[in-house]
């Protein structure tokens, strides 16, 4: 019996998790995807979503990537000077919930890094005052080259992949008298891309050393890209960067047509091509479609970025056309300023709880699954992306 063929479209967190789980289920996996979409904006905090039903698969995946740590109710610091809780974090991010006392915020000359303002911000946070946690800027000179106050965070982090440099930095920290009474040390997101420099520094100093979260275009995302590449080469998977334009039923399974015209035959397809941020779902401007639109879903403004037998919807119902002669309006889906997800954060492909996509007739399609930000009504969080990817991958491999 030959292995089941599984095609995964999209190689962000959910796509990679789906590919991992499908391979774990002994399927032959094809992974198609370019640059990760929303995953490339990850801050390094893992927020709750639907945790994978299969905890063993989740642990195996996290261990394989060795990038993220599950830590329910951990506390992490942002570069906006705020503290927040999360359910896990990038391995380099400092978990403040494990610390009591005063944390040193490294005060090094660096464009846009204001240790005084950050420490002041953290000290004013209810999360810190409730636990008696304090922050103080501590002047340290961790740079070795004159350009380092100004180069981008990711470049600076990459320079900390050098073991010799980490040894030197550990020496600097150990020698600093101001750090002796500190309970932890907080850096910006600079501590290595492929190397776990935060852990090495923690061991050397004998106290937790770690980072703030990255901004949305930052270092945590670069680490994911590196870990993804490493995993693909270990697994012998080639990441195909071509676009899929159409998927359709074919024989017992499905066929995907690429932009080049080539077709891939497969037994199951997992759509993990992202939501609005990752451009799996696109908004077609009303003025561009009003005159030649067909009635129905296209008038609703949102469309899937590839041609697939899936329906977009939100709040459990298919997206309907608006009555306006102008065509679709975005305003009803916009953010109203509160904590509840906006309409545009909910829109996605309608699925049944197993992960199977609901077709035009409302019945699940056996060979088509969806995961990650593409799924309607699911939280747009990293744990949701990983969890839904793992279950979709396992189900696709089982058939």
């Amino acid at each position, binding site marked *: 019996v030959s292995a089941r063929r599984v095609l995964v479209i999209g190689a962000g967190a959910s796509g990679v998790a789906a590919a991992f789980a499908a391979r774990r289920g002994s399927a032959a996996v094809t992974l198609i995807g370019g640059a990760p979409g*929303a995953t490339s*904006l990850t*801050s390094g*905090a893992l927020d709750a979503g639907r945790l994978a039903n299969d905890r063993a698969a989740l642990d195996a995946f996290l261990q394989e990537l060795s990038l993220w740590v599950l830590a329910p109710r951990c506390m992490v610091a*942002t*570069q*906006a*000077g*705020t*503290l*927040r809780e999360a359910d896990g974090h990038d391995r380099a991010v400092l978990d403040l919930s494990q610390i009591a006392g005063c944390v040193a915020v490294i005060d090094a*000359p*660096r*464009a*846009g890094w*204001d240790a*005084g*303002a*950050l420490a*002041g*911000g953290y000290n*004013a*946070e209810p*999360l810190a005052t409730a636990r008696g946690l304090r922050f103080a800027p501590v002047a340290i000179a961790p740079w070795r080259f004159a350009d380092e*106050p*100004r180069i981008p965070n990711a470049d600076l982090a990459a320079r900390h992949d050098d073991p010799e440099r980490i040894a030197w930095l550990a020496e600097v920290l150990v020698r600093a008298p101001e750090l002796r009474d500190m309970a932890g040390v907080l850096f910006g997101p600079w501590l290595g891309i492929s190397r776990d420099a935060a852990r090495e520094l923690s061991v050397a100093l004998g106290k937790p050393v770690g980072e703030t*979260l990255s*901004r*949305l275009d930052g270092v945590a995302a670069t680490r994911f890209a590196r870990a993804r590449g490493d995993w693909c080469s270990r697994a012998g998977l080639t990441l195909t960067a071509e676009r899929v334009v159409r998927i359709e039923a074919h024989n017992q399974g499905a066929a995907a047509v690429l932009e080049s015209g080539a077709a891939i035959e497969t037994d199951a397809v997992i759509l993990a091509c992202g*939501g*609005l*941020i990752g*451009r799996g779902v*696109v*908004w*077609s*401007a*009303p*003025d561009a479609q009003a005159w030649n639109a067909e009635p129905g879903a296209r008038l609703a403004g949102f469309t899937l970025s590839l041609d697939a037998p899936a329906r977009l919807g939100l709040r459990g119902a298919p997206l309907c056309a608006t009555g306006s002669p102008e065509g679709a309006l*975005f*305003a009803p889906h*916009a*953010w109203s*300023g*509160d*904590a509840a997800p*906006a309409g*545009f*954060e909910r829109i996605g492909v309608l699925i049944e709880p197993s992960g199977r996509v609901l077709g035009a007739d409302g019945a699940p399609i056996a060979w088509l699954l969806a995961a990650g930000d593409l799924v309607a009504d699911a939280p*747009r969080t990293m744990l949701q992306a990983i969890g839904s990817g793992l279950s979709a991958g396992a189900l696709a491999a089982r058939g």
Partner: protein
Amino acid sequence: MTDVLVDRLKIAASPCRTHSAPLPGGERVVEVAGFAAQVGIDAVTAARLVYRHGARTDLITERIRERPLEATVVCACEPVIEAEIRHVLVQEFASTVDDVARRTRLGLGACGGMRCAVRCGQIVAQERHLSPREGGRQALRFLARQASTRCVAGGQAQVQQEALLLATVRAELGSLIEEDR
């Protein structure tokens, strides 16, 4: 006309001098290329700064001489450097993130403040001696308004941008959203 009114109302007024006295900052033309090279910023940033401040650019040059890292670009879209933000807060009566945006155009470019509003809030809190959370709250309100302004425009790029902006807000200022309501 003003002269007639002053005469009739018998107001003691000094003679009109708007035709001879330059506006503040208009006393002298600042040479852009020289200024850019002197403080180490690019020509576009320098030209826009000189356009807004004229001869008062000297005050900003002075700040950067004392603290070179204030030449850092905070808002990359427009673009605005940190020294200008601090200058308008200290010297020009700007007192909120909104004021800074009106004076410098910070946050009014393509990304709607996604990359700079939070940092600007920190600077406002420092210079105006506000609590850091108040600075964050001002940034949050600015971002929320920018998001709703953009959806009038529609189009894929704007909608995607709005999704990005909201992701930023949720990642960094999430705790302030509930509190602000």
